[in-house]
């Protein structure tokens, strides 16, 4: 793998246990450079633990974690210079002014006064907080405090941003503004690893996603891969010009078709079939042979929230996991280890 293609984050077989609770179990995934990678999962899935390990706050108990090819345990100081971690709570010195707070972190990263002035001005402009630089952090609204947290993360110009629930508790306007800032940061070449429960916004924002549930990866790959696949079966929506009595029977006879569901009030069928056994063209041919006229035929793509619900349902084993973000998803038969 060439250096430019080297993943920014590379996690292999990561496990972590708190007393008797297994927080992470054999987690493996990677994140490519310059992307926005969503990290989703139900409460207690192990997202924050993973983020804390990536941020070098926790040592991994098993497995390996590399950031920019650096081992996060042995080379933690260099890793810390390249990452910016925004925790899921306000980690702010609220008795400081905005300027003092950012100036303090910039100085801690070793910048001289001239550089600090420039950097603090830049990050305040980016987060649209320049007008509040002399205000006490304590008196700022939640949305503004969140922006200051983000500004703090940016003062040392990190390449990788680790954001844990950055939009939690924000009003819709503040959330939209925060998402715009994150998109702007991506345009600036940053890689962003973002954990969030607001799936609709992640779906718009992210290039790739990892879904974690009960300490295990359920899916890791591109957003496109997630939307178009559910594992071994694929669903299509077939719309006819008019109802035809033989069409449903003809579709059922096609090899590999698992289910055909007719819509109640429209001449439409939802057809589920085995991805490996059936070619969509066979379905079209069978429909035309039955004498029906086709109005439309399209794959039913899942939204992130639907995929999340499907993949995190209790009892469902991990079905899909890919490691290369650019490739189509790798299908793993149910019951086999991913």
């Amino acid at each position, binding site marked *: 793998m060439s250096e430019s293609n080297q993943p920014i984050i590379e996690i292999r077989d990561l496990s972590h246990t708190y007393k008797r609770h297994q927080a992470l179990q054999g987690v493996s995934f990677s994140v490519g450079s310059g992307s926005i990678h969503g990290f989703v999962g139900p409460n207690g899935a192990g997202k924050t633990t993973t983020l*804390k390990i990536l*941020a*070098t*706050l*926790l040592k991994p108990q098993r497995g390996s974690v590399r950031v920019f090819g650096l081992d996060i345990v042995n080379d933690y*100081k*260099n890793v*810390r*210079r390249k*990452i*910016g*971690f925004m*925790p899921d*709570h*306000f*980690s*702010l*010195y*609220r*008795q*400081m*002014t905005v*300027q*003092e707070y950012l*100036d*303090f*972190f910039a*100085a*801690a*990263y*070793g*910048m*001289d*006064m001239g550089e600090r002035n420039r950097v603090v001005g830049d990050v305040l402009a980016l987060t649209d907080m320049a007008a509040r630089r*002399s*205000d*006490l952090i*304590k008196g700022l609204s939640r949305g503004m405090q969140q922006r200051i947290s983000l500004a*703090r993360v940016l003062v040392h110009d990190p390449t990788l941003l680790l954001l844990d629930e950055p939009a939690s508790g924000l009003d819709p306007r503040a959330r939209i503004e925060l998402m715009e800032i994150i998109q702007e940061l991506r345009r600036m070449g940053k890689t962003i690893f973002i954990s969030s429960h607001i799936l609709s916004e992640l779906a718009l924002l992210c290039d790739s996603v990892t879904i974690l549930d009960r300490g295990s990866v359920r899916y890791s790959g591109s957003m496109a891969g997630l939307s178009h696949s559910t594992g071994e079966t694929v669903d299509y929506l077939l719309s006819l010009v008019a109802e035809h009595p033989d069409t449903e029977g003809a579709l059922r006879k096609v090899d590999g078709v698992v289910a055909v569901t007719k819509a109640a009030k429209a001449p439409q069928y939802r057809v589920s079939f085995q991805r490996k056994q059936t070619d969509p063209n066979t379905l079209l041919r069978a429909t035309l042979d039955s004498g029906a006229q086709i109005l439309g035929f399209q794959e039913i793509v899942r939204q992130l929230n639907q995929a999340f619900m499907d993949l995190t349902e209790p009892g469902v084993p991990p079905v899909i996991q890919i490691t290369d973000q650019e490739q189509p998803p790798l299908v793993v038969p149910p019951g086999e280890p991913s």
Partner: protein
Amino acid sequence: MKLPALALFERALRLETRSAVICWARIGLLAIILITLLPIQTLARSGWYGAPGLRFLQELVWVNLVFITLAGLSYFASAITEEKEEMTLGLLRMTNLNPVAILLGKSTSRLIGAILLLLVQVPFVLLAVTLGGVGLHQVAAAYVTLLAYLFLLCNLALLFSVVFRNTATATAIALFVLFLFFFGPYWAAGIERSLATYYHVDLHHSIWPVVTKTIEIWRRTTPSERLDAIFQTGFAEPVISFQVMSDLLLGVLFFLLAWLLFDPCTREEKDAAPARRWFWRRTSRPSRIPQRLIGIGAISWKDFTFISGGRIGLLLKFTIVGLLIALCNYVAYENDSKITLEFEGGTLIWISLITTAVWLALEASRVFKDEVRWKTLSSLMTLPFSVTHLAYRKVIGVLMGTLPLLAFFIVGVVLVPNDVGDFLANVFSHPQTFGMMLVAFFQYILFLHLTAYLSLVLKRGALPIAVAIQYLGGSFFLGFMSVFFFAIGNRTAEVIPFFIILICIFLTGMLHRAIGVRLVRAAAEE
């Protein structure tokens, strides 16, 4: 039938009954009491002192009084403020619980826990009667005195917990009031005497007899005065004294005040995050980090400015030390003592040492705690430095805000160089004196480490608990070592200080490491 007003109270008691930590704390306390008996009994048998029972009782009761005052203050003062700090008081108020129910549930349940901690000692303290030199009547009177004082303290702290926004302020104000409560009558009496002596005020006319009587009543309400009387040989006063009745009455009064003020003081939920001190500029030109402090030095700047109070805080500390020195001079003048250069030098040396030690202890309890409490440790720990460097830089920051007070010490030494020289010559020519000075120094270093460590593991009261542990542990250890060396021969007693120093160094090293481990864990737990 359950009363709604007692619902929270009952729940708090249930939780406390089930708490393993509290159970172990009681067992630990009893173990210490029993162990304390050993050196006292041995030394008494050897004829070092008589009335071992009285000595045992005195030691325990005074430790209890100091511990109740120090630990109880922050324990009781946080009853309501902890809800304010966590912004949960509004939720409590939205339930069916009325102010009395909240006050009973949050404070009186703690009082019951503390009373149980005192009462559980009684059967063991009765051994004092067996040891001799003290009567059952004196034991009962001493513990009733402590219980009444505990009731007063709990409700005084509760009042400030209702009025103030955070625990630190409530504790500080309550401590100041208690300071006045204990020492006020003596100062007032001193001022009254001065007025009579120097300004020829006739204390038998006008309002002065009433003032004199008030000061006398005030003095009699203090537990220290009462305990002094109890420990006198031949004590035969009733167990329920004026002090007991007045402390209980004051306690009830403070509770009623807390009830009265509860609604107006808690109606509005306010952010209890650390505030900028009143003497700081609010938002004008922000303070800048000096060029020489960039990199990890910025951590020291932050703690110097925001924990120690910065340059203005330092100025305030200098002022306070200056005032204390002036007070010493005033007292000496009042007592017709001669104000000599030796006196000034000694005052400067001792006041600067004591105030520096006190301030360092206060800052040891805050230097790491504040980061954990306000969840700022995780952002600090992602800076590219090791935890050891971060911790040391924080310590340097608070030292920068306190050690300049030693300037008074240097001035003192310059004023009386001969006295200091004589003192040092005396110390170095007597190994035992030298050893004891080293013991004091290493014990203090151990104490600072213990305070910092406890501040990371306990929710509140790290400093008073460190004082109690250090005192009890120190007395027990010193006693135990004395008995041991006494048993094997007097000549070897000279090595006691060096054994203690070794143990202090060992424990300090352990705590030093434990603080680092705890900081890493605390950052990950945020």
